[in-house]
């Protein structure tokens, strides 16, 4: 959630609470000053003021904007990240086509089937031992 989104969300919530309080005060005043037996024509005169209605609609608009602004474009950090590069495809949602979804794994260097391919039974132990021995020689 970006800072702008958080600020707008705060402003929207405060505005909505303010509208709620204004509406509450208005109805309390209405209860104390009007007669229950008044005709419906007279009661229509006591509708919620337009400024409170407007405040509610504006606050809802601000809150909606803040929620949509809270979504950032998806970013990925490659596993072997030497240059501190961040990969992005410029999209807010993940593509559901498997051919496209695996693009991200390839770019990031992640192996989605790693939990199987790196099981001890699936790994060539001899080759790994040789690799480690060569690595230790270089130290």
């Amino acid at each position, binding site marked *: 959630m970006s800072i702008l989104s958080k600020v707008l969300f705060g402003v929207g919530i405060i505005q909505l609470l303010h509208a709620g309080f204004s509406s509450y005060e208005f109805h309390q005043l209405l209860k104390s000053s009007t007669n229950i037996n008044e005709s419906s024509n007279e009661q229509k005169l006591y509708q919620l003021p337009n400024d409170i209605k407007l405040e509610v609609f504006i606050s809802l608009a601000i809150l909606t904007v803040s929620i949509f602004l809270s979504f950032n474009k998806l970013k990925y950090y490659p596993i072997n990240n030497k240059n501190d590069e961040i990969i992005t495809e410029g999209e*807010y949602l993940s593509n*559901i*086509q498997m051919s496209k979804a695996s693009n991200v794994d390839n770019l990031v260097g992640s192996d989605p089937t790693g939990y199987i391919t790196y099981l001890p039974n699936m790994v060539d132990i001899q080759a790994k031992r040789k690799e480690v021995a060569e690595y230790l020689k270089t130290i």
Partner: protein
Amino acid sequence: MSEDMFSQVKSSTNIQINKQRLLYVQDITTLLFGLGSGILQLESLQGFAMFFIGFCFINLLYIGILCKFQPVKYYVNPLQEIFMDNFVRELTGYVMSWTFSYAIVG
């Protein structure tokens, strides 16, 4: 299996992620719209009309902004998943917050 059938394979992880994002937007907006309609002291059909208009408006915004007018890329069956699957859930959440704020304000 032919090549065409392979191209239709979907990523279940990404489907779930997209559904969760949609659910987050719909949940929070319908609760806020419910609060708004309670403050406005809407009753009966007016309140439900506000829900329908708000729900459709938010979904269209979602399709426009987050899906970039291409919901087919992100949802298997966009019309059903965006407009229908969460409808009852959102309606109950809306009615809850609507009646809650209506009772407090009124």
